[in-house]
């Protein structure tokens, strides 16, 4: 026994050390998780279901990220949040990025959630409005008729592009955001809308609507780009890569499991309707995954078009190098 005692002691010490190491190890993994904040472009919505899914399924955690989502709204400017380092990532449309860059702000798009511009003009089925020209002499409800937002600018660009005489058009501020309410209540003849919001809700309401996508009429702007600062890309490329990889994984999972993703969405937007959430996610599947490009992808052509149109319509005064406004290397690195 006496001879064994030191061995027991040694074993006890080793065991204790192992336990401590294990504990500190655990502590470290928790501590190592990098805090990441994302400024969304709008209130919590199925549009962001990929983020919710990546959080709930632990895809961010697997990458060692601790992601916080900040809801947006009409008064929140994600670019400001990113530049002030209040958020590492934000959801921004392509025209806003190009404008910011022409103002000297180093903002870079790293992935596009939707492959096509989801902004559109929604009309009732029998309104007789089929092409942009038909909008002449009509009332169109938009976000802010007095002080055009980026979103409103898209519509104006489309109208301009289609040679629609804007002077004949009466812009009204949107009162009813849900479904086709604005149209059925006669507040406007046409309404600026978002493909996965109002048309989906209108279908749930049982109202038949026609849609006129801006992208079909020369405004192929990417609408919801995951963006970050050039600094972060330069200083923490690994973090950016991890974030993009986990986010795209979240979106892939969401479109393949719409019901489950709708459940995750409901956790963030508890006032939301799960039927709508599910329908919206199903509706956005082709926007995210067209089959022609990998999800999250950005093509050069829409970027160039965006820049050209903005310069043409004097939305920017100087043409910047559009290839610096976005990078696909993180999408490629996510495969």
């Amino acid at each position, binding site marked *: 026994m006496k001879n064994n005692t030191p061995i027991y002691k040694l074993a006890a010490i080793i065991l204790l050390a192992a336990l401590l190491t294990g504990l500190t190890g655990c502590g470290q993994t928790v501590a190592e998780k990098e805090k990441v904040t994302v400024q969304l472009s709008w209130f919590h919505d199925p549009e962001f279901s990929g983020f919710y899914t990546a959080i709930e399924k632990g895809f961010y955690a697997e990458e060692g990220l601790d992601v916080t989502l900040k809801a947006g709204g009409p008064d929140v400017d994600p670019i400001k949040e990113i530049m002030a380092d209040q958020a590492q990532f934000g959801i921004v449309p392509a025209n806003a990025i190009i404008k910011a860059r022409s103002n000297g702000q180093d903002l870079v798009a790293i992935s596009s959630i939707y492959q096509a511009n989801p902004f559109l003009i929604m009309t009732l089925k029998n309104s007789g409005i089929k*092409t942009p020209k038909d909008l002449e002499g009509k009332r169109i409800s938009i976000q802010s008729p007095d002080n055009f937002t980026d979103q409103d600018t898209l519509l104006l660009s489309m109208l301009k592009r289609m040679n629609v005489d804007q002077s004949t058009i009466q812009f009204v501020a949107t009162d009813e955001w849900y479904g086709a309410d604005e149209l059925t209540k006669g507040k406007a003849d046409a309404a600026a809308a978002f493909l996965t919001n109002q048309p989906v809700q209108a279908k749930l309401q049982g109202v038949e609507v026609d849609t006129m996508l801006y992208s*079909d009429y*020369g405004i192929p702007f990417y609408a919801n780009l995951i963006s970050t600062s050039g600094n972060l890309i330069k200083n923490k490329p690994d973090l950016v890569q991890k974030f993009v990889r986990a986010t795209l994984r979240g979106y892939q999972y969401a479109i393949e499991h719409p019901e489950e993703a709708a459940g995750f969405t409901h956790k963030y937007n508890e006032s939301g309707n799960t039927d709508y959430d599910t329908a919206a996610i199903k509706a956005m599947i082709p926007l995210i995954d*067209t*089959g022609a490009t990998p999800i999250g992808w950005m093509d050069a*052509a829409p970027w160039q078009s965006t820049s050209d149109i903005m310069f043409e319509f004097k939305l920017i005064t100087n043409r910047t190098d559009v290839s610096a406004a976005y990078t696909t290397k993180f999408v490629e690195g996510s495969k």
Partner: protein
Amino acid sequence: MSTTTSSNPEKSSLAQKLRRFSLRRRSLRLRLLVAFLALSLIPLLIVIVITSVINIQSLRQQTFNQLESVASLKESEINLWVNTLKADLDQLSTNQNSLELEQGLLTGILENADTAKNNLRNQYAKHMSTGGLFDEIFLLDSTGRVVVSTDEAQEGKIQVNEPYFLEGKKGEFIGTPFYSVSLKRYSLINSSPVLDANQNVIGVIAGRASLNSLSKIMVERAGLGETGETYLVGSNFALLTASRFEGYNPGETYIRTEGATRALTDKNSGYTIYLDYRNQSVVGVYRWIPELKVALLAEQDQSEAFRTTTVILWISSIFTLLAIIVGVVASILITLSVVTPIENLENAAKAISEGQLDTRVQVTTDDEIGSLSTVFNEMAGQLSTTLSTLEQRVADRTQTLEAQSAELAMRSQQLEALNKHSLKRAQQFETIGIVMRSVASIKNLHELLDQVARYISTQFHFYHVGIFLNDTANEYAILSAANSEGGKRMLARGHRLKIGQTGIVGNVTSTGQPRIVLDTGSDAVYFKNPDLPETHSEMALPLKSGDTIIGALDVQSTEINAFSEEDAAVLSILADQITIAIENARQFENTQKSLTEAETIYRQYIQQEWKGLSKKTGLSGFRYAVTGSEMLSAPVSDEIIETTVKTGEIYAKSDENSSALAVPIKLRDQIIGVLNVRTSGGRDWHPNEINLAKAVAERVAISAENARLFEETTGRAERERIVADITNKIRSTNDPQEMLQTAMQELQRALGVKKVSITPYRPTAAPGNAEKSPEKP
């Protein structure tokens, strides 16, 4: 004896035979059975397994082949569809009528553009209606704007960034299926450039084919049974064509099955079994279609595809089972037919070895075992004869041995009895020793007898022991000691028996011969004593001192036949010893009595002498006081002295005025006086003082006695001298008269009396008178 093993094959049923395949170890039977089973079943099973495997393999192969052929058919249909689309577009782009219109519209040289558009639209529509596969044919200008489309709603749209426009400007473009957000469906667009007369690209002509037509091809289910289907999956794993199952819509459903993955990821074609998108196990063939960059899958539920296989497996299983049963039964029967005769032989041999020599085997066959049985029976017969003579001799010898053995046993028993007897005697003698040692020191006769009775009872285990002693007149034997309850009662009653008359004790005390009485026959009359009802044997032994019978020792037992003559002899020794002890005790008692008498006489003498002395001298005592000593003439009557005389003890008394101490003066325990010390004033007598007084009193007693004895001796000497003088004077004469005269004279002088007379003896006269008493002073 009829043999137990004589086999009866006619009677033994199959059930009986099977029962013999019991758990008993039967190595030969087991080995034969195993061998037969192995020989019959192993090849059978091998054949069945091999054929089944081959069958299943070929059936599976057949199933795969069928699916493969369906897949090939579909693939060629898809290729045909793709080629048709190509040919369609070629035909369109080379149509001279259209081309003129197209060129005119695109270059803007036409005056009436709307009419031209209508015409072109009509031409496109005509083309579509005459067997073309396109849903929509449209013309784009160099800016990507849709100039003319069979779907008017599409006109005016700008598709500048679409691949079919960008690629179509460069040359013929074959598109892959993609989802059109504006059309809300999957479609495929082929395009080719529109050239002007100078071969400059002025626009793009494109044809859109809905995948619905492809779906129609795919859902055609010829040769796919109940559950089979074929479908296309895009590179993004999305389902492109309709599923035959509900709830799986193209554009919403992703197919991440093993088949789809192999085709899309590895760009492979092949077949395997896997879980499909419904989680059903399917047999699937997958093809990579490079033209469309899609996967073609042809699947059929495994349960249906292998139904034939399952049936074949069932059938072959049933046949296998039947074959096994037949094989087992046949093996058992064959084994039994071989083993049973051998077992009969074995059992017969066993029976013979157990001594049933008349056992024989029944010969039922004429094969090798049959002839072996015959030889066995012959051998058994010979063995039987040989052994029967041998048995007789063994029996004789056994008898002799048995007789000798019996005698030896008897001797042994006798020796044992003797040994037991000796042991008993030794024990009895030892017991006698114990009894005698125990009573040796007892001098009191009564106690002695009592102890003897008790010891004999406890040591020899007699329930009653009584000792009778003859009375002095030798008339009765008196019960003097007994141990039992009944005996004690008799003792208290003073039980006695007339010597020579009553009971066996009476008999023994008169004859001096031991007597044993047993509770049988005529002697039973002796056992009527109500105090000793349990007695069934009695023995009385005389107690003899020399030739004198002094009593009897009477022992009684509850056993019927407790005493033998030998017991009587042994206990006689005890009786003798008891007699000696009784004699000793009697002698001791007599001596003790004499001594006591002598002592009493002496005490009386001393008392008498001292009383006499006091009277004679008139001295009552002495008193010493400070004034000196004085003699007391009258006895002192005092409470203290009287108390001391009465009690014979030292008496001390003190009060405030005086203290007194009285010590008796004792001579041979007789009080002859009292030493009385008095003092004035109260004081306690110290023990030393008392002891001193006591010692003085003792000395006084001895000195006084010595003085008295001296005086007495002196007096006696004087008397002797006077007698001698008188005698001398009497002898000096011979005349009797003178003699008497002299004697009287001398006596008168010696005694100082006035008259002495001598009177002749007359017997009738009253003895003595005052003159004759010498004590008379």
